[in-house]
Structures are given as C-alpha cells and as structure tokens.
C-alpha cells in the first residue's frame, strides 16, 4: 500500500472562524480512511482544501510524495481526486445522465454530443451500483435519496484514485447503504483510496480501515478501526463518554388523540393512509427510499394539495390547505431537504429561527423585538450547541450539521403541539444526535405528539413508541416500539408490495 495523499499542518481561516488549525491527514491506496468529528469540526473544510475549492492559509499538500497546489476543482480532478459533496451540488434542470457526465460528455461529429452513449454510460454505472434510476429523468424530479445516489454515481464515473465521500449515506436507507458498501469494497480492491466522512458509527466499524478524529478544527488522533472500540472514538470526538439510552415507552392509554389522519391520498405517492398519534407519543415512520413518508408529512402539513383525506387535530377536523393553516392548527414540519425547503441560506441564524415565530416577537405594528429574538436564538444556540460565531452569522456559512440544528431550533421555538420531524438527525454528529433524542423524548413527555420519519432503522427503533411502516405509498402496518419489534419485521412490511402494482401503473 503506497501513500496517495499527505496533508500536513493545514490551516484555514474564515471571517470569524478558525476552521482548520494545523490539521494533518494521510491516505493510502486501497484503504478507507474515516474522518470523524462533531458538526463544525472542520471535516468538510479539510476535504474542500484537498479538492481545490478552498486554498489553505498554511500547510502542505503532497500527492504521491510530491508537493502540489490545487487551485481549482478542475485541477483536483486532473490529479485524480474526486469528491462527493455533503450538500448536493446537482443541476436540477439537467437530466441524471447529463449531471453525471457534465464536462466530460461523449461527442459525435459536428460538435454534437452523443446523448445515447451518455445515457448508456449512466445506465451502466447504475447497473453496477445495482440501483434503478432513469438516466433521462430531470434531477429536480428525484427525491433527496435518489439525488444522493446520482452524486455517488457521478463521483464513481470519474474513476478517481482518491475519492472523498462527505456523508454519502446521510440520505440513504439500509439497503442503499449496503449497496454503496459493496461498491466501496470493489473500489478498495482496485486500489482506490477513500476518505469517508460519516456520523453513523456503525458504518465506520463496517468499512473503515483507519479513523482520524478532529475536534474544533484541530487534529485529535488517528486510530485503527478494527481494534478501537466505538466508545473510544466517540470520546475522542466529543471529549466525554455518552450514555446509551433505551426507549422507554410511556403508558398512553388515557392520553387524548392529538392527530388523526384518515384516507390521505395523493396520486400514486400516497394511497389511503390513516393513523393516529396521541399526545405524548412518538410515532416513528419507517420505509424504503420513495416509500412516501415525506409526502405523507407534506400532505398533513398542507405543503402539497391532497386528493382525498381528512386531518383531525385534537378531535376537530382541521381544514388545512397550506402550511400556514397547519402551523395555525399547531403542526410543525421539519423538512428533510434543509437547503431547499428548510432554510433561507442567505439570511442569518436569528432570521431563520424567527421565520415561523415572528407573530410572537412583534407588536401590533409588526415591529420585531429583535433583541429578544436574538437572545432567544442565543439560548437555542447554546442548548443545541450550534457552532456559529454569532447568532447573526449567515446560515449558508455554517457546517451542514449545524444548519440542521438551526432548522430544529426554529420549530422548537414555535412550540407546536404536533411536530413532524423528517430525518431530523440527517448529518448530525453522534453527540448532538443523542441530545436530539433526549430533546424529542422530553418534548413527548411535555405532551407533544411527535412523528419522526427516519431512514435509519436503529434510530426509529430507539425513539419510537410505535412504528408505522410504509411501502409504495401505502401504510403497510403499525408495529409496537421498543424491544418487541425487530429490524426484520420492519423490513418485511417495508417491502410488502402489492401484487397488482404493474397493472395499476398502466
């Protein structure tokens, strides 16, 4: 195994943030080197230095022993470095295949692009990845998970010697993660070096050879994955031990039903879904990619128009036709796509946290009590340990995980009775994750009805009092939470297709 990359004493400052403080990192051919750390530790920044997006303020980059500078993403590609970005960087108006091969389109005579070859090549990659995505589909019509798959396919198409994967599985479910790991194993055997960033600890054990931990922009240490217990890695990351909690299912037999959904339908994405959530209950939603969980949440929240269905809040039928109505009825929705649907990236943290809450922070003339809003925001920054130089920082400058926490903060402040969390821990570090679990549990204890949609089965199992499972737009069953239910049972329901599906589509 020879050394592909050696980063030494890399330093990087942003206005108000010392993001990298003399970090070192190396990578060998044919290994998976995991890069771990809390949100905002500097993982993405370090990798952006490696892939030519940022120029370091200090330190050296060596590739195969030779010192280089990497002035642009293009230069990085030329050096054989490919990167899957944490934030999806796709061109929504182009098709899947066009995205994958942007900048490297096969040509025909007369400057024409060879569209057929392009689609075929994309299809080949998807086949190798064992997933079915239509290469001709416009990217904007794909779900987040599918888009993530496209990103992965794109980086694979580069045939890079070094592949940086910044939280590639954040939006994927177990099956897809499994497929990705198969691909990673294959790449490893071909001698590709892989930098793997993830907040999912179990993945590290499965595929990483070595683990480097960062904290607060500084290098903490590098260990061998096989002979280091997870708890050691976690304590390297957060500087303390985390206790592991079990779900504790309260007795809700007397609790009133907070939300009842009947016959919810929209096209083929959601078909006749009905369930109830009691005050104080956490209802988990499991299912495969595209099962329709997000769509159910959007319909309840009024973000999309439902074809049929009734939504009953606290025993009264609520007429919800827009998110405004839903919020007025006491429903909050934390969307899975924070960048496009959750945050106004150009505005600061306070403005984002304030967005659903301005009515409470303004007087009769609509004048905002900005100081008060600011101090409340500071409280949440502390409570959720959001890493930001101040509550006036623009959200786009925060790390991915910290952005997610800002979305959380805005709904926590809104104090809704019914909260729908769609992938609430996507991209959130292990320390913060257990904070969020604790938070959700305490919200439930306070009598809130909570729906948690998650593609991570362990998360669903750990949080839910009951577990609803969806498959292809239908609710295939509701299982009890806690130890009583196994992952296998959930997967069984999640793959319970309807026989006549093919006929129905025609």
């Amino acid at each position, binding site marked *: 195994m020879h050394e592909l990359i050696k980063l030494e004493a890399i330093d990087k400052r942003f*206005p108000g943030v010392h993001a990298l403080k003399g970090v070192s990192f190396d990578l060998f051919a044919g290994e998976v080197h995991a890069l771990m750390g809390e949100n905002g530790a500097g993982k993405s920044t370090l990798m952006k230095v490696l892939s030519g997006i940022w120029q370091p303020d200090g330190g050296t980059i060596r590739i195969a022993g030779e010192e280089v500078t990497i002035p642009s993403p293009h230069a990085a590609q030329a050096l054989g470095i490919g990167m899957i970005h944490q934030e999806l960087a796709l061109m929504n108006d182009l098709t899947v295949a066009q995205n994958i091969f942007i900048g490297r389109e096969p040509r025909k005579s007369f400057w024409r692009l060879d569209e057929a070859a392009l689609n075929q090549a994309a299809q080949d990659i998807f086949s190798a990845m064992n997933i079915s995505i239509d290469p001709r589909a416009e990217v904007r019509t794909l779900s987040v998970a599918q888009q993530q798959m496209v990103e992965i396919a794109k980086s694979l198409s580069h045939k890079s010697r070094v592949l940086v994967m910044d939280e590639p599985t954040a939006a994927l479910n177990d099956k897809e993660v499994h497929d990705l790991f198969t691909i990673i194993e294959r790449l490893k055997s071909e001698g590709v070096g892989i930098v793997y960033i993830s907040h999912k600890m179990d993945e590290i054990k499965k595929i990483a050879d070595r683990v480097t931990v960062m904290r607060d922009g500084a290098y903490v240490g590098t260990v061998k994955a096989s002979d280091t217990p997870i708890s050691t890695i976690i304590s390297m990351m957060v500087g303390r031990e985390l206790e592991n909690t079990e779900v504790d299912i309260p007795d809700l037999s007397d609790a009133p039903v907070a939300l009842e959904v009947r016959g919810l339908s929209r096209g083929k994405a959601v078909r006749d879904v009905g369930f109830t959530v009691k005050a104080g209950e956490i209802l988990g939603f499991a299912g495969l990619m595209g099962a329709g969980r997000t769509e159910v949440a959007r319909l309840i929240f009024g973000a999309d128009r439902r074809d049929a269905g009734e939504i009953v809040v606290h025993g009264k039928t609520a007429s919800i036709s827009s998110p*405004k109505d839903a919020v007025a009825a006491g429903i909050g929705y934390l969307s899975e796509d924070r960048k496009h649907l959750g945050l106004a*990236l*150009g*505005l600061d943290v306070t403005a984002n946290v304030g*967005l659903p809450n301005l009515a409470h922070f303004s007087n009769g003339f*609509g004048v905002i009590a900005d100081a008060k809003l600011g101090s409340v925001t500071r409280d949440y920054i502390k409570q959720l340990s959001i890493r930001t130089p*101040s509550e006036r920082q623009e959200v786009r400058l925060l790390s991915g995980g910290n952005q997610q926490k800002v979305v959380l903060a805005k709904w926590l402040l809104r104090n809704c009775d019914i909260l729908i969390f769609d992938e609430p821990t996507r991209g959130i570090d292990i320390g913060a994750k257990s904070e969020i679990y604790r938070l959700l549990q305490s919200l439930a204890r306070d009598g809130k009805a909570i729906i948690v949609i998650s593609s991570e089965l362990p998360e669903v199992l750990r949080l839910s009092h009951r577990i609803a499972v969806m498959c292809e737009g239908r609710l295939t069953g509701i299982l009890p939470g806690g130890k009583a239910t196994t992952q296998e049972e959930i997967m069984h329901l999640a793959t319970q297709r309807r026989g006549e599906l093919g006929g129905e589509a025609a």
Partner: protein
Amino acid sequence: MTLTVQNEIKKKASSGVHQKLLASASLIVMLIFFSLASDKFLQTSNLIGILQATSVNGVLAVAVTMVIITGGIDLSVGTLMTFTAVIAGVVLTYLGMPLPLGIVAAIGTGALCGFVSGTLIARMKIPPFIATLGMMLILKGLSLVISGTKPIYFNGTPGFSQISTGSLIGTVVPFLPIPNGVLVLFVLAVFVAFILNRTALGRYTFALGSNEEAARLSGVNTDFWKVCVYSLSGGICGIAGLIIASRLNSAQPALGLGYELDAIAAVVIGGTSLAGGRGSVLGTIIGAFIMSVLLNGLRILSVAQEWQTVVTGMIIILAVYADMVRRQRM
C-alpha cells in the same frame, strides 16, 4: 472562547458600519472629482438641482428595492408613477377636489395597481417580469386614455407645486432650501429602511427573496406578504407621481417609459442583488445619487452628450466593480 466570540461579533458589527460608509466610496470620489473639475459644481443651486434630480428616480428606486429583495422585479414603476399623476390631475383639476384628496387618490391608486400586480404574481403565479410588463403597458395606455392624451395642469390647485418644489426646511433653516421632494425621498427612505429591518413585513420580504419555499413551509403566508410588498411599492410609486406632477406642475401622460430601468439600475448599483434576498435602501439611495451626480457633473463640465452616455456606462461598471473589490477585501 466567549471572549473571542464577542470580539468577533464586535468586529463584524463595526465592519458592517464601515461597509455602509464605504459603499458610498464611488459617490464620494465622484463628488470630489467634479468639485475640483468645476467651480460651478459645488454651488448651492447646483447641489439642490442634483438633489431634486434624484428625488423622482430615488423614490421609484426605493419602491422597486423592496420588490427586488423579494426576488421579483417591477417594470411598471415608471408608468405607474405617470398613471397616479394623471389620477391626481383628474381629481384635482378635472373634478376640482381639494388637495388632500388628490394626494390620497394618487397614493391609493398606486397601492391598488401594486395590489393587482402582486395578486397576479402571488396568486396567479405569473412571473413578475411578465405581470409588471403587462401592467406597464396597461398603465401607459390608460394614462393616455384618461388624460385625453394631453397634459393636465394643476393651475387650479396653487398649493400643489409646493409638494415638490417648496421647501419646508428652507423656511426653518433659510440657508438650506432643500426642496420638499427631496425631503419626501429621505423620509420615505428612512421609513422603508425601518420596515425592511425592523418589521415582520421586512423580514418576510428578505425571506421571500432568500427562499420562498422555506418561508412557506415555515407557515408564512407568502402570497399575502408578497401582495403587501407590491402594494406598498405601488403606493410609493404614487408618491413619486405626486412629486413629478408637482415638479412639472402637470401630469404628463406620455412620461415614464424607461424610468423603470433607471430605478432598477440605481437599486443594483446600490448593491441589491437581482436574485433577491439581499439589499438595502441606503444602497439604493447611494445608487440613485451616483447616477444623478454623474450626469449633472458631466453636464456641468459640458461634455458632449454622446460622450456623456459613454462615460456614464463606463462609470456604472467601474463603480460596481470597485464596490465589489472593496467588499471582497474586507
């Protein structure tokens, strides 16, 4: 740790102030240059002329600033201004109503037209460019129809010309005869800046431009607020209509076409992004002054008219470039 953070906050805040002060760097350079180049430039009468020349475009630019921050555009501001002036003319001269009614009619008509544009855009989802282009043409035609294709004079309403050309400040501070039209511009700028920075409407204005869908999913009634912004902007165009009518002592029904471009240019020169989500009224005012100082200075220097145009084009590009380089440095 807390200390560093606090320091950094302070630094940020002060750099914010610096930035705003420096945003006018191009303007200041221009002022100094023209003062040195011609001794006529700094005469009080000329400076007041500049202020007055800025008032109409400035007010229109303030109106369109809000719209641009939502990520929209308003091409109808110029003809809406004219239309409200014509309405004021009809109310005051043709119907002989008292002055306050004319003022209310102009501003109300402006707000109403803004409301229509806003509704087309927010509820019927017509792209702002098309909705306001349509409005621009409709209002242009209606101004001609209503006025009977001729100017309406305000000779029957003696106080009317005071709206723009009188000087409240001048009666108090005699050596500062700043015309009322300019006073209106400044008061309006402060008012809109207050709305943008301190009120819910302002916050939603930025949110709409930054990420409308995120705002909608936060339970914000985005359509309603968008209509509000366009209505307010329309009302401000009504004020511009009053100022220009008062200045010309007449409602000129064919005026106004092309004014939208000047207004939008002032906004963009002032650093507001056409993509929405960011911008400031102060910047817009500075942008409007950059344009009028430049034109006035070139006229004072008796630069040939064709070259005035060339130089204006180059300076606009340069001013924005300088502004950008400066911002990147900081």
